[in-house]
C-alpha cells in the first residue's frame, strides 16, 4: 500500500529550527483510503475483497491439486505393494466386489479374452500387472479411506440422469485424477466433473427418445413426451 506523507506546515519569511515546528499530528501519514471519498472507498473495498477471494480460491485449488497429487503418489506406492498378490488373486478380488470383467478389461487396457486367460493362470506382462494393481489400489482407497461401501456400484451409476456417463467411464479414459480430485475437493459436483470430463455433454447426450415399460412389461423406446423434452 502506498503511503502519502502530509507536507510540513508552511511558514513563510523565516527559517525556524525543525524542533520548533508545531507538530499537530506527529508522524501522521494518510493512506490512499483516507484520501478517498466514501463512495470511492466502498468501491475499493469491494475490489479488494474480489482480489482476496480470487487469491483464496487459487490457493484452495492449489491445495486440492497438491492433495490429489499426494493421493496419486500414495496409490502408486500401494499399487506396488499389492502386486505381490498376483494377477489371478487380484482379478478374483475385483470380481468378488462386483466388478464386471468387461470393465476390468477396459480399466487395465486389455481385451476381455486377455482377462479370461489371466483368470485361468495365464501370465500378464509386468506393465499390465501394474495397471491392474493401480485399479485395485484405487478401489482400496475408495472403500477404506473414502468409506464408499459398494465401490463397483458407485462407479457404475451415471453421474447425471441426463447422460449415461459414469465414473467408470472417467477411469477407463485415464481420468483417475479427476475422480480423486472430486473426492478430496469440496466443490466438485457431478455436473462439474462432467463439464471437465466431456464439455458439451448436455448437448451430446440430449435425446428426443425415452425408454418406458410397454404393455407386455418389457422395455420399449418412444419419442419423448413434449413436456419432457
Amino acid at each position: 500500500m502506498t503511503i502519502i506523507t502530509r507536507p510540513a506546515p508552511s511558514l513563510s519569511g523565516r527559517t525556524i529550527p525543525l524542533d520548533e515546528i508545531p507538530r499537530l499530528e506527529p508522524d501522521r501519514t494518510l493512506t490512499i483510503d483516507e484520501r478517498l471519498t466514501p463512495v470511492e472507498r466502498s468501491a475499493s473495498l469491494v475490489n479488494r475483497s474480489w482480489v482476496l477471494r480470487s487469491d483464496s480460491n487459487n490457493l484452495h485449488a492449489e491445495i486440492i491439486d497438491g492433495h490429489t497429487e499426494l493421493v496419486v503418489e500414495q496409490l502408486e506406492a500401494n499399487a506396488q505393494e499389492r502386486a505381490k498378490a498376483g494377477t489371478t488373486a487380484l482379478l478374483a478380488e475385483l470380481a468378488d466386489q462386483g466388478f464386471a470383467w468387461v470393465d476390468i478389461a477396459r480399466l487395465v487396457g486389455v481385451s476381455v479374452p486377455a482377462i479370461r486367460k489371466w483368470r485361468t493362470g495365464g501370465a500378464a506382462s509386468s506393465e499390465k500387472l501394474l495397471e491392474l494393481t493401480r485399479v485395485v489400489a484405487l478401489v482400496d482407497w475408495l472403500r477404506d479411506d473414502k468409506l464408499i461401501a459398494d465401490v463397483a456400484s458407485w462407479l457404475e451409476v451415471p453421474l447425471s440422469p441426463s447422460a449415461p456417463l459414469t465414473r467408470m467411464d472417467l477411469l477407463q479414459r485415464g481420468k483417475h485424477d479427476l475422480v480423486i480430485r472430486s473426492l478430496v475437493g469440496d466443490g466438485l459436483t457431478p455436473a462439474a466433473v462432467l463439464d471437465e470430463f466431456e464439455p458439451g455433454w448436455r448437448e451430446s447426450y440430449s435425446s428426443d427418445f425415452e425408454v418406458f415399460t410397454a404393455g407386455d412389461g418389457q422395455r420399449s423406446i418412444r419419442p419423448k413426451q413434449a413436456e419432457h423434452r
Partner: protein
Amino acid sequence: MAELEIPSDIEALCLARGDEVNPHRPLFTGDVIDGVTVEVLDEVAQPVVIVSHPCSMRAGAELAPLLHVAPVVTYHAPSTAVWQKHFKVMPIGAVANMQHAVVKLDRMTLVSAGAIDPGRRLYYSTRHGINLLRQRMVHHLTRVAIPTQTFDEEAGGAHEEADLMEDWIDSAIDLGADAAEVGTAFHDWIMTVEGGRTRQAKLLDSQAVPGVRRAMRAEIRGRYSP
C-alpha cells in the same frame, strides 16, 4: 443428436474374434457365425450376424426357434462416407479372411436356430457394437435415428445377463460342472425372486447390478466348488 453415430475406433465394436471367441458365451445379438445356409440368400453357406433383439433371443434357457440374421460380406474400408451415407451396411471390422466386413442390413431374414452352429462363431460384438448395429438396423428399416444410449438403456439388462451367463458357464465348467446343465441352472438362478423382484429384473437397475454379480460368484462357489 439426430444422426447415425460413428465409432471413434472400429475395434471398439469387437469383443472377440477368431481364437479369442469363448465357446461358452451364449449366442447373442451381434455374433457372427460361419456356414449358415439361408434359403432366401442364394442357399450358400455363409457368415451371418444375429440381429434379433437381445431380449428376444431366448425362450427360457433355450434359443428362440427362429432368429433374425443378416449376411456378413467383404466391403471397402469404412470411411466417414460409409458411416454417413451407406445406410444399407454396418461396418464391423475384420472378420475371418475379410479385412473390412460389413453387415448387409438390406438382406435381413429369418433362419431356424438349428441352422446356427455356435461352434462356428467367428466374432462377437461389444455392447457398443450391438447398440450401433441396432441403431443402423432401425434406421435402415424406418429412417428414424435413435441415439445408441437409448438402445443401451432399453436393453442394458439383457447385455448384463449375457455377460453373467458366460461367466457362470465358464466358472462352473472350470469347477467340473456338467456343461449340458449349467445353462439351465443359470436360468433358474437368474429368474429367482429375491427381495420382491427377480434377479433378472434387478439387472435393469445399474446400481443393483454389481450386487447380482457378487451374489452370482458366491452362488457358483457354493454350488460347484468341491
